């Protein structure tokens, strides 16, 4: 099972349930128009993910995946707005090719013409596509059952929070032994950081990769190799070691599908990260988000959201409430897409300037607020980065306080902080020292969370209430927001356009990937969406 939250019999902050309900319903009001927007549109990546679920793999001699080739051909003939399934399976039913891969090859040299089937042809194309995509989803289901079996056999970590470590060599064959070593040293979760820049590629690279910048490309084959390596580790260590990657950027839906097919266990998947930090078009992001979350829900994958990132650009005290607002929005979007509480690794971070008086108390207040607002979610607790200066000794001390805050406030997933943050990519010894730090705090603090009850009217409880109140104010402002930016309209899109989150201004008609978005035509059909929403 997912990281369980430590059972809190009574709440420590004594948040007013009416206020909490109000915050949730405001998030829902802000999110609902976005969901409607997502339902009205499709994207090239959603359609390509559908082809991937139907089993289309591989790439041409230039490394361009067949899903891209086929989609481009179909789009050229009949457009994107009807969905890819009808024209593709109509061609297959007509006997233009014996399978998807042959069809893609023929289409890419222009020897197939696509059309929108009607009448009986439409019915046939519809049922053929549903059958093939359904088989893909059943493979995802089988991988989920396989995970359940392995977790049952090998077991979950016997401590809380779960320990999350990153590997990032750029070479999958170097990553595998490093990940196995990290697991031996105590990692419960391995994240393979992606190569810088992958989020802006409008295709998923193919095959095993040995060249990456500050990370390793996410490919289906790399997923498979790493999962197999960690299955070996799970067997060796007698506990199931989880694997994380990133469903973000322009290919988020496809990567989600590949993660489901290759039994990845967690995926970074934030509703607004791509918009704010990668300048990806907001509509593209929200459409891709919804589909990828539906896939994650089906695959039993725990998502990790990216609120920590806001605090790397905005001040962690002043902007604390933007984290809470984003968590509430992420929760709303996640649940709407079918994810359950145990799948919500909502993010937050220890990023307050250590020079601020009472910074640790403030951190505890923020962490506890997240804990109590989302009592069933396995929160993702991120280490300090912004105030890591290169003084590795001071950094080690900060990481210890970060670890302590994590234990005290019952966080679910702890990303291990490195004292060489901002200096080098972690050395072997950095990781070892970092894990010693975690183990010491875990062991020394024991179940200190049990004894930790901030005074009901003390600094911590008051600060938490203040952040919650500011969150509600911000949600109300978002609701009433009229943008000055063109084309944004009111509400959340307008607020994003005006720089409400992370201080970045992202208008709805700007950003990358907008040309890959289409408004659905009447009669739009996507078997994957239908099946994912059917359950």
């Amino acid at each position: 099972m997912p990281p369980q939250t430590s059972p809190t019999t009574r709440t420590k902050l004594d948040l007013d349930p009416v206020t909490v309900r109000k915050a949730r319903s405001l998030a829902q009001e802000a999110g609902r128009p976005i969901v409607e927007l997502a339902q009205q549109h499709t994207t090239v990546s959603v359609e390509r993910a559908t082809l991937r679920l139907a089993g289309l793999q591989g790439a041409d001699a230039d490394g361009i995946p067949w899903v891209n080739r086929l989609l481009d051909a179909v789009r050229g003939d009949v457009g994107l707005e009807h969905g890819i399934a009808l024209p593709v399976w109509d061609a297959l039913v007509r006997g233009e090719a014996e399978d998807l891969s042959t069809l893609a090859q023929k289409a890419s040299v222009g020897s197939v013409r696509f059309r929108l089937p009607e009448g009986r042809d439409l019915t046939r194309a519809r049922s053929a596509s549903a059958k093939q995509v359904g088989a893909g989803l059943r493979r995802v289901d089988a991988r989920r059952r396989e995970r359940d079996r392995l977790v049952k056999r090998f077991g979950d970590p016997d401590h809380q929070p779960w320990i999350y470590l990153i590997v990032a060599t750029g070479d999958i064959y170097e990553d595998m032994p490093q990940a196995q070593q990290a697991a031996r040293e105590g990692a419960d979760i391995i994240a393979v950081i992606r190569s810088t820049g992958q989020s802006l590629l409008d295709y998923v690279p193919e095959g095993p990769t040995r060249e990456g910048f500050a990370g390793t490309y996410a490919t289906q084959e790399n997923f498979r190799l790493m999962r197999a390596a960690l299955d070996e580790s799970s067997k060796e260590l007698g506990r199931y070691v989880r694997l994380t990657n990133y469903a973000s950027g322009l290919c988020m839906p496809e990567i989600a599908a590949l993660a489901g097919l290759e039994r990845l266990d967690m995926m970074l998947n934030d509703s607004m990260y791509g918009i704010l930090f990668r300048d990806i078009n907001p509509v593209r992001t929200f459409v891709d988000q919804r589909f990828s979350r539906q896939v994650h829900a089906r695959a039993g994958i725990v998502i990790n959201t990216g609120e920590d990132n806001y605090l790397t650009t905005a001040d962690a005290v002043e902007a604390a409430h933007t984290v809470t607002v984003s968590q509430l929005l992420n929760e709303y979007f996640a649940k709407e897409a079918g994810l359950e509480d145990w799948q919500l690794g909502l993010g937050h971070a220890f990023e307050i300037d250590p020079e601020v008086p009472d910074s640790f108390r403030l951190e505890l207040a923020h962490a506890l607020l997240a804990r109590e607002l989302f009592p069933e979610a396995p929160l993702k607790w991120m280490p300090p980065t912004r105030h890591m200066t290169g003084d590795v000794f001071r950094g080690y001390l900060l990481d210890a306080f970060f670890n302590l805050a994590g234990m005290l406030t019952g966080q679910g997933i702890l990303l291990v902080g490195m004292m060489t943050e901002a200096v080098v990519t972690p050395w072997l010894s950095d990781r070892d020292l970092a894990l010693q730090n975690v183990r010491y705090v875990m062991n020394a603090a024991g179940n200190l969370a049990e004894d930790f009850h901030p005074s009901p009217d003390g600094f911590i409880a008051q600060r938490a209430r203040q952040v919650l109140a500011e969150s509600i104010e911000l949600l109300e402002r978002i609701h009433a927001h009229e943008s000055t930016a063109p084309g944004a309209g009111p509400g959340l899109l307008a607020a994003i356009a005006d720089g409400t989150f992370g201080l970045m201004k992202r208008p709805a008609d700007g950003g990358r990937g907008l040309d890959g978005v289409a408004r659905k035509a009447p009669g739009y059909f996507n078997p994957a969406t239908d099946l994912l929403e059917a359950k």
Partner: protein
Amino acid sequence: MSIVRPYGDTTGDGMVQLSFTLPISSVGDQSKLAEGAAAQLAAKMGLDPALVVHAKPMGPDFTFFVVYGRVHHLVDTDQVQVVERDYPLLTPKEVNLAIRKGLRRRLTVVGACIGSDAHTVGIDAILNIKGFAGEKGLEYYRELKVVNLGAQVSVPQLVERARAEKADAVLVSQVVTQRDAHIANTREMSAAFRESYPSSRRPLLIVGGPRFDETMAEQLGVDRVFARGTTPGEVASYLTDQLVTRRGPARQEVPA
């Protein structure tokens, strides 16, 4: 006094500490050999005597060491080469005043992270109002027009935007240094600007990042390199010095 030595707890004791990992086992009876190996490395590095104070096995194949020891090297501060600040530090008010008087229009700065680099921390620290190290970023300066293009901007995009905005200065931040990407990207950028502008009209090219060496400006083809710890105030002062004070009233073409 220009000769110094490291200071442990007494003047002139020459004491230093270091830590490193060797790919050798220190499990069981291997530990003596491992410590000896660490002492040998320290001795070759000039520590005499070298004290291996800590040796910890990391798995079966690696050992982490902490070593203290005395070095006999002398440091001559007269021979240290640094890039001295060759421009006066101004307050935001002074910068605004100098630009208003000297340029009679706003000074335009275009900033970006180029290449595959997605780390906007550096450029944001300098440009965003929020700023860095207690100083407000360049957006705060009334007489500066700041265009922050964000991350993963291609060089042609940057040049095009710089032309469109009639940029006086272009600021580029590079954080990712794998395979010396920061060097290659910066050279590509400076070459592109040289190609598309006559030299008298080229905007001032500034690059910054934690792994740059301030002495490399010429090699990289840029006007200035800013290393880690640079504050927005320093950048603003430099811009004013170069584009207003030194150029005098020469560049007052058309007010934008």
